């Protein structure tokens, strides 16, 4: 069965050009970039080329880029670096809707005696700048706020927040994993000190990430050992994936246009059609400020896991904020923070597209989804009540 992949916020297909760029580094040019001999040493220059490609995508200098093993490592590193370089400050501000790589790291800090403020969001997943202003204090080691949310695609006003924090000389990190490659960003205009990106969200492989650290930002490494990455990230370099990430960034810079044109067109078509053809469906998140590829829709009275499994029957891949789909049996913390009704959280489905999606794939989803929802509602007591007009509790 052909796979119809609508789960690109979870992970993406590696681009053919990316794979091609990496292949020589497994068996041909397999030397260690730290080596004295030409065979290894030449690899070092390839890594520096990749660093330039990544830098180009986000408008930074190459030496502001540190390669890491994933977005999670970049996030952990950024937060811990701010903590280590501000040893007297004990307050961290973040939001309630961050990725676990920030959220759980902050919980870890709480256990160590740090005060963490989790900023709320409104019903559309928007951050209220006021709530940030109210909690800024002199004890602040770091503010970490994501650029775009992985579940809803909602974009936070990082530029505005950055200006506020810059004025107050507070270290500011943003998790930009979901926005990089989807919308143009440029750290020249973005007053952030550190920025996280991850390869497997932009058609590079899983297991490579980068952290941008603005020149002049005090830095403390998280992985400690050898002198790799200019002493900022130890461990023998993942040469192949670094080169792949460079290539992916090069391609992304070119294909962002496609993302906001073609991909957004497909997403809108999918979304509008599902909303019109499935009753009691609604968008989660701010439609105005959203990634062009993401659509998070709640189908009331049905359960996300059930929807996903029925979609799976057609080879359609999507994801859900339903508790039943997560190992922890906790429903989406993002939708909960937005105050989405439990019945709606349960029935939430996220479609996330990429430049590799095709119109006929969208058409297929549009074709099967209304039937799936209808059938599940026939099974559901709430659906039944709804259908028979008895109403339902929330």
């Amino acid at each position, binding site marked *: 069965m052909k796979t119809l992949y609508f789960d690109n916020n979870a992970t993406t297909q590696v681009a053919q050009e990316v794979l091609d760029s990496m292949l020589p580094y497994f068996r041909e040019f397999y030397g260690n970039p*730290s*080596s*004295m*001999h*030409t065979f*290894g*040493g*030449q690899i*070092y220059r390839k890594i520096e080329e990749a660093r330039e490609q990544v830098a180009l995508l986000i408008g930074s200098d190459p030496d502001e880029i540190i390669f890491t093993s994933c977005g999670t490592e970049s996030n952990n590193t950024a937060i811990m670096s701010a903590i280590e370089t501000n040893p007297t400050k004990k307050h961290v501000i973040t939001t309630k809707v961050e990725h676990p790589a920030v959220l759980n790291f902050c919980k870890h800090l709480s256990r160590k005696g740090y005060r963490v403020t989790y900023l709320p969001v409104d019903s559309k997943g928007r951050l209220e700048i006021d709530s940030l202003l109210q909690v800024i204090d002199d004890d602040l080691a770091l503010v970490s706020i994501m650029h775009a949310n992985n579940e809803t695609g909602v974009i936070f006003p990082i530029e505005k927040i950055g200006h506020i924090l810059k004025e107050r000389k507070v270290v500011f990190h943003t998790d930009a994993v979901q926005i990089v490659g989807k919308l143009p960003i440029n750290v020249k205009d973005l007053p952030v000190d550190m920025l996280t990106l991850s390869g497997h969200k932009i058609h590079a492989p899983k297991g490579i990430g980068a952290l941008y650290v603005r020149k002049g930002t005090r830095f403390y490494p998280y992985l400690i050992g050898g002198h790799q990455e200019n002493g900022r990230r130890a461990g023998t370099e993942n040469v192949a994936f670094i080169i792949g990430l460079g290539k992916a960034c090069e391609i992304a810079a070119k294909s962002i246009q496609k993302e906001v044109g073609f991909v957004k067109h497909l997403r809108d078509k999918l979304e509008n059609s599902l909303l019109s053809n499935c009753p009691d469906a609604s968008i989660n998140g701010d439609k105005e400020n959203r990634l062009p590829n993401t659509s998070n829709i709640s189908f009331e009275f049905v359960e996300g896991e059930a929807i996903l499994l029925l979609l799976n029957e057609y080879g359609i891949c999507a994801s859900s904020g339903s508790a039943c789909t997560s190992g922890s049996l906790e429903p989406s913390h993002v939708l909960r923070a937005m105050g989405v009704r439990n019945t709606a959280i349960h029935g939430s489905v996220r479609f996330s597209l990429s430049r590799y999606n095709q119109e006929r794939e969208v058409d297929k989803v549009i074709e099967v989804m209304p039937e799936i929802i209808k059938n599940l509602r026939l099974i559901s007591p709430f659906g039944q009540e709804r259908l028979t007009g008895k109403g339902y509790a929330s």
Partner: protein
Amino acid sequence: MWDYTEKVKDHFLHPRNVGEIENPDAVGIIGNIVCGDALKLTFKVDRKTNRIIDVKFQTFGCASAIASSSVLTELLKGKTIEEAQKITNQDIADYLGGLPEEKMHCSVMGKEALEEAIKNYKGEKQPIEPQGRIICKCFNVSEEKIRKVAQEN
């Protein structure tokens, strides 16, 4: 791996004027076996013209150190003592088309040996032993010297 210029590679692979002059007019020795690195510079001077007519070196050190020594001997040939005195380690590095930043200090040993040799020629001093705490373990460069070099560059 160090990014060496073709010139460095050439002078490393084919060092000029290797050896030790018999009955030299000047001897400059830098470094000692305990710390590990050394350069021995010997030359002959034409007493009438005051020009260096023959010069040889022996170096125990990295490729930069060997290439720097080789270039130094090339630069010295035919120069008067006064001209020779003006040679800096930057001149050596420039001649080589540059050295990696971390390897700049390798050209210092040549300059130091030259200074020692000139003092020796003038009868001011028997060479050997730089002063100051040794901070480069691989290389017998004194702290004082490094500061001087840092200012010059």
